[in-house]
C-alpha cells in the first residue's frame, strides 16, 4: 500500500512538474517545478552559482551548470518512469502472446519458439542493450528498444510454463468441445488463468527497467548529456565524487537523483510483493526483493 502511494505521488509529481505539449498543443498546463530544468540560473541571477548547496530557493541545490536540482529531479522522472512502464507493457504483451502460442500448441512449434527464446537469453541483457543503443543511437525510443529486445523472453518463458499446466484443465477441452476457435480458447480460457505470475513479474520488472535505464544513463548512453534524467544526471556529476585535497563533495548533486531512483524502485518492488500476495502466485518470483507488506 505504501509502495502504491509513493509511486502514485512520484508519477503525479513528474507529470505535473512542467507543462506537457503534444504537437504544439498544451495538454497539461500545470508547472509544479519552480524552474525550467534546462535553465542555467546564473545567467539570469548572478547570485546563483555552480554547485550551490541546498537552500530555501533551491531545496536540492544546483548542479554543475547552475541548474535547479529539484526541478531536474522532478522532470527527470518522466523519462525513467515512462520507459519503465512502456517497456514492461511492450515486453509483457509480446511475451504473453508468444509464450501463450508456444505453450498451447506444444510440439515442434513450442520447440522452435523456445529455442528462439534461449537464443535471446544467451545474450547478457545489458550488453545487448549497449549494442542496440550503439546501433540505433541514443534517444527515448532506442532506449525502449534496448530494453524490449532482451526483456520479452523472460515473460514468454514464464507464461509458457504456466500455460502448459493450465491447458491440462478440463475446461480447456470443454471449450474446444463446444466448438471454440483456438484463438478464443487461448485468450479467453487459458490466458486469464495463467496470467497471475506474469502480472507479478511485470510489476517487479518496472523497477528493474528503471534501474537499467539509469545504469545506461550513468554509462553515458541513453540520453544526450544534459538531459534531465536520473541516470544521466548522476553521470554528469560523477566527477564531483572524487575531489582533490581540500575540496568538498557537493553531495546533493548525487544523493537526490540517486535517492529518487532508490525510492521509486523500492516502492515498485513493494507493489510487486503486494500484488504477489494478493494473487497468491508463488514460486516463480524471486524471493527477497525487499519491501514490507
Amino acid at each position, binding site marked *: 500500500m505504501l509502495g502504491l502511494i509513493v509511486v502514485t505521488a512520484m508519477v503525479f509529481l513528474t507529470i505535473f512538474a512542467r507543462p506537457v505539449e503534444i504537437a504544439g498543443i498544451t495538454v497539461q498546463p500545470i508547472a509544479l517545478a519552480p524552474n525550467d530544468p534546462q535553465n542555467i540560473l546564473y545567467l539570469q541571477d548572478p547570485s546563483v552559482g555552480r554547485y550551490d548547496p541546498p537552500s530555501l530557493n533551491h531545496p536540492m541545490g544546483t548542479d554543475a551548470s547552475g541548474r535547479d536540482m529539484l526541478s531536474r529531479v522532478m522532470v527527470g522522472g518522466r523519462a525513467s518512469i515512462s520507459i519503465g512502464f512502456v517497456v514492461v507493457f511492450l515486453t509483457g504483451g509480446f511475451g504473453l502472446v508468444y509464450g501463450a502460442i508456444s505453450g498451447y500448441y*506444444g*510440439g515442434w512449434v513450442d520447440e522452435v519458439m523456445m529455442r528462439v527464446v534461449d537464443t535471446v537469453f544467451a545474450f547478457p541483457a545489458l550488453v545487448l542493450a549497449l549494442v542496440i543503443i550503439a546501433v540505433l543511437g541514443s534517444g527515448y525510443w532506442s532506449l525502449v528498444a534496448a530494453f524490449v529486445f532482451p526483456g520479452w523472453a523472460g515473460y514468454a518463458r514464464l507464461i509458457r510454463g504456466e500455460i502448459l499446466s493450465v491447458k491440462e*484443465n*478440463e*475446461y480447456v*477441452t*470443454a*471449450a*474446444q*468441445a*463446444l*466448438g*471454440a*476457435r483456438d484463438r478464443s480458447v487461448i485468450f*479467453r*480460457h487459458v490466458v*486469464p*488463468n495463467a496470467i497471475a505470475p506474469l502480472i507479478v513479474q511485470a510489476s517487479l520488472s518496472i523497477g528493474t527497467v528503471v534501474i537499467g535505464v539509469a545504469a545506461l544513463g550513468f554509462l553515458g548512453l541513453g540520453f544526450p548529456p544534459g538531459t534531465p534524467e536520473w541516470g544521466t544526471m548522476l553521470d554528469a556529476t560523477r566527477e564531483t565524487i572524487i575531489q582533490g585535497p581540500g575540496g568538498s563533495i557537493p553531495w546533493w548533486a548525487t544523493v537526490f537523483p540517486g535517492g529518487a531512483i532508490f525510492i521509486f524502485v523500492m516502492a515498485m518492488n513493494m507493489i510487486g510483493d503486494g500484488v504477489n500476495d494478493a494473487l497468491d502466485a508463488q514460486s516463480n518470483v524471486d524471493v527477497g526483493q525487499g519491501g514490507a507488506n
Partner: protein
Amino acid sequence: MALLEVEDLTVNFYTEEGVVTACDDLSYTIERGEKFGVVGESGAGKSVTAMSLMRLIEEPGQIESGEIRFKGENILEMSEEEVRSIRGNEIAMIFQDAQTALNPVYTVGEQISEAIRHHLGYDEDDARDRTIRLLDQVGIPEAETRYSDYPHEFSGGMQQRAVIAMALSCDPDLLIADEPTTALDVTIEAKILDQIEDLAEEFDTSIQLITHDLGVIAQICDRVMVMYAGKPVEKAPVEELYYDPKHPYTVGLMSSIPRIGDTRDRLQTIPDTMPDLVDVPTGCSFHPRCPYAEEACTRKEPVLVDPETGHEAGSAPGDHAAACLEYTGDLTGGLDYTVEVQGEDPRAQLGDQRE
C-alpha cells in the same frame, strides 16, 4: 441411416515407451434417440473413443484409420471449420470432473451463453434467457440469480448440472457423457442420471454413456459395448448382457459388483490389472486374466462373432456379439460359468443399490 457410425477406428498414441493402441479396430453405431453405453476398466480406451468423435485427440495421439460417420458424413475428413461447427452444436460432451470442466474466471452463466451465442447466433439478451431456462431445466434453483455466480460458489452436484446444461445448450443430436457421475455421491448420482435421461428424451438426443459402473448402464442404456484394452469384447442389448453375458470379461465385471445381502467375505475381483497397452498380450488380450484361458487363447486373436452361430457379427442394433474363441470353436474346455438371476428385472437388481 444411423446417427453415428464408427467403423474400424484405430487410435494410436506415440509415447516414449512405444506405440499405445488405445482404440483398436473399433466399430459401433448409435441410432437416433438411442442410449448407448460403453463400459470397461480404466485405460480401456473409453474416453479416447469419445474424444475421437469430436476429433479432439491431442499429440502424441493420432487417429490412424477408420471412419466416423455422423449423419452420413465422415468427421475425419472434414475441415477444421466444419468440425468446429459440429462440436458443441451437434455433438456435445458432459465431462467427468465438473469442478475442472468449468473455467474459474467466468461466471457459470457466461460460460453457457458463450456457446449459445457462438453456435446459434443469439444476441446477448436472448442467450441469457436461454441459459437461465437451461439452468432451470437441469434443476438449479433460482437460476436467474445463479446465472452470475462463479463455479466455486456452486456445490459439486450443481456444478455437474451446470456442465450438463452447457452440453445441452445448443440442442445437440448426440450427447457424449464421459463418466458424468463418477465424482458424485450416489444420491446425487441417481438424480443426475434421471435428469440426463429425462432431458435426452425431451430434446430427442442420443446418448453415448461412458462409465465403468454397470449399475449406471443398467439404469439408462438400451445397448452396451464392453471394452477391454482398446477392443470391444462384447456388444449386446442391455438386458441380454445382464441375463446372458457371453464374454468372460463381462462376467468378471458383473461378479465384482457388490450386492446388498451378499454373504461373501471378500468381494470377487478380476485378478491382476489391465495390460500395459504398449505391450498387449498376444492372441486374446484378456487371456492372462481369464479363468478359462487355454493355450489357443495365447495364439489366436478372437473376433467379434455372434455367439449362437460363430459367424462374424452383423452390425444390426439388436445383435449380440462377443469376442471369445469359445464361439468360433477353438476352445476345448468351454466357458464354465452360470448366471444366476435373482429377482425379476436385472435393471431393478442392479439399479437398486443406486436409488
